[in-house]
């Protein structure tokens, strides 16, 4: 899951997410379709911003690429906050509006 700054428009958000997808794909990972939650109010202000674009994406990735992806996410100015979580092997989509289930979802970024 990642939060993109609210100053961008929907298309720019898509481009930003697409950039991370390419990074994952290019390095042998498998990126699922991103699931945009849209612009949401934050529970508290982050960098004096009251809202942000939430995007959730599932992907599997190698260990080396993961470090690289984390680094890119951290230095990216468009990303307000990100979280990569390892999913349990039996992870199934619950009540949330999420994308299609991968064969072997290892991590979710959003």
């Amino acid at each position, binding site marked *: 899951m990642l939060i993109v700054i609210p100053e961008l428009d929907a298309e720019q958000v898509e481009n930003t997410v697409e950039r991370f997808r390419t990074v994952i794909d290019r390095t042998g990972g498998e990126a699922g379709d991103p699931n945009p939650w849209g612009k949401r109010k934050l529970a508290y202000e982050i960098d004096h911003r009251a809202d*942000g674009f939430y995007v959730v994406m599932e992907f599997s990735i190698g260990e080396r690429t993961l470090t690289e992806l984390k680094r890119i996410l951290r230095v990216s100015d468009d990303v307000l906050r990100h979280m990569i979580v390892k999913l349990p092997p039996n992870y199934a989509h619950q009540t949330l509006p999420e994308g299609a289930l991968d064969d072997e979802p290892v991590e979710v970024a959003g």
Partner: protein
Amino acid sequence: MGRKRGGPRRERPVKPKPCVFCKEDINYVDYKDYNTLRRFTSERGKIRARRVTGLCPQHQREAAVAIKRAREMALLAYVAG
């Protein structure tokens, strides 16, 4: 016999109170599902005790982690009210 006020002490009836996650057969407490997690926090945003939430030890732990993750992603507030 030194019977206490209020009559003989009765045994409390055993009330089986299944954990809501066990009941719904949920094996992963998702941090993205902040509306469910909100039920396990006080109005102040603090994580409620197990005796209040009625969760089993495993799910209480998982819910606590999920709440902390949700807080980090600004889905839940650290302090509210």
